[in-house]
């Protein structure tokens, strides 16, 4: 916490409040930059609050023995930027460059931005990288872990299953994967586009310690993630049941919020729902 600014670190903020602040920033920045991917970012807000508000062992974003985190569903990067800001690692001024010219804060995360371990954006690549990070820790005798947040539709990619086989075969117990299972993808519902069910059985069959969790119960998520024994056993996966657009009633489960930006009126309504009052 050495680099956190007073009053902004998670030590000063309960994970549930962290989640609410992440949502506030998602809305503010999406509106300011007039860009989409809002529903995807809202979907993972509670998962990132649990990770950055308690689960990840991160003293500074560049500590060699920090836990590694891969946001494999890179299109939700705005939620990650918000979490990094609330940890004190990104200033408001930096946050306000989101999607602007010359920014390091694009729609998908870039390695050049402090706090981002790996650039992502092409779906299906992050799990292999996280498995490599976990293997590196084991080979070095380090207790650091690797966490990856993937989307359910990302499991359409064959490379996810290449990595799944490798991690289970090598019993990468220091690898923790969270699936943001919101049941939606760019053009429709996963059940209609390419059915993944029963997702938990598929991961179990690949040899993973698989648990289904509520992806919006921040307190329980922190407890579950912290309770994982990453010293032995198979790799872990939390299938997090989430709602696309969670936190904003008119976005819930609406495929169109994968891409659409908000109008001013929609922004006002969303901010009232998330923060309890209209934007200032």
């Amino acid at each position, binding site marked *: 916490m050495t680099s956190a600014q007073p009053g902004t670190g998670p030590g000063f903020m309960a994970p549930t409040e962290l989640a609410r602040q992440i949502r506030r920033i998602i809305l503010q920045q999406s509106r300011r930059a007039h860009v989409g991917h809002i529903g995807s970012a809202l979907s993972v807000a509670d998962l990132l609050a649990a990770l950055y508000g308690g689960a990840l062992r991160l003293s500074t974003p560049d500590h060699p023995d920090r836990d590694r985190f891969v946001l494999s569903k890179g299109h939700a990067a705005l939620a990650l930027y918000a979490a990094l800001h609330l940890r004190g690692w990104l200033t408001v001024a930096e946050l306000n460059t989101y999607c602007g010219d010359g920014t390091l804060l694009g729609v998908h995360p870039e390695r050049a931005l402090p706090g981002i371990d790996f*650039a992502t954006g092409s779906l299906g*690549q992050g799990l*292999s*990288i996280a498995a490599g*990070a976990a*293997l*590196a820790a084991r080979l070095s005798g380090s207790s650091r872990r690797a966490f990856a947040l993937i989307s359910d539709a990302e499991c359409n990619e064959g*490379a996810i299953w290449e990595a799944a086989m*490798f991690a289970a075969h090598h019993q990468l117990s220091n690898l923790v994967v969270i699936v943001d299972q919101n049941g939606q993808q760019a053009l429709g519902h996963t059940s209609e586009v390419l059915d993944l069910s029963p997702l938990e059985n598929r991961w179990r069959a690949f040899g993973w310690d698989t648990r289904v969790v509520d992806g919006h119960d921040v307190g329980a998520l922190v407890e579950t993630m912290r309770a994982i024994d990453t010293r032995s056993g198979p790799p872990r996966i939390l299938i997090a049941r989430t709602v696309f657009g969670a936190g904003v009633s008119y976005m819930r489960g609406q495929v169109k919020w994968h891409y659409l930006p908000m109008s001013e009126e929609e922004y006002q309504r969303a901010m009232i729902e998330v923060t309890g009052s209209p934007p200032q």
Partner: protein
Amino acid sequence: MRATFIRTLGDLAERDERILFLTGDLGFSVVEPLAARIGRRFINVGVAEQNMVGLATGLAEAGFIPFVYSIATFASLRPYEFIRNGPLLHNLPVRIIGVGGGFEYGTAGSTHHALEDLGVMRLQPGLRVIAPADFQQTATALNATWDLPGPTYFRIGKDEQTVVPGLDGRFELGRIQRVHPGHEVLLIAVGSIAAEVVAAAAEVTAHGIACGALIVDCLNPAPIDDLVAELAGCRLAVTVEAHYVTGGLGSLVSEIVAEHGIGCRVLRRGISRVPDGVSGSERYLLDRHGLSRAAIVQATLGSRELIIG
């Protein structure tokens, strides 16, 4: 070359714990000695080249130097986007070893013929692209580059006996190696075909034309200064590669000639036809595609009017 590469890598790996070796379940009768030497730093990841490169990305970020190994087509083309978004985008010291350039996997057929690996790799500015000409140069090139920052693609052959005359294993990153004197015509080669090209240069010389031979063993960083200096003094440059004529050595030389306004003609020898399923030995296939020594000599002599006029 591959056995030499593996042996040299074993020597390096015994001295430096950062070196890891990942294979996509290939290298039978070649990689086993390395496994015996480096133990758990040798990992057979299975038949999964995309995952192999992704793993290497995560490993390299943590300070390791992973070498990933497969047949050239599977090492380069299958995981291409993983290479682009991983080692390249993060500037990590991942080494991609593609075995068997051109038709070296002869009768294995079209799926195993690497005819575009140099081209697709060369167009990534952040990727070193090294294609040694013989087994001696393979060892020198590996020793010279193994611990450099950023990623490298090695295209290495399978021949452990043929030596390129006049090369003596020399390698300098970003330079060319001149292996036969003569400035009127230049034969320029990349990879395992080099020995035949040097022999062709000698035959052309015997016909009364001063025909030199150059080895380009590194397409990235391109040996631009050396090539400009050599090309400026010649009338005709013939590039020879076991690779499609587009994208590889012939393209590189043409770009340099055009960009520097050099007044020499470029004749590109390479593969220009779509694979039609006909297979055979490497020698047969090189011959079929006009890349035998005799065909190179004939094409060069047949282009005499280009240098007379």
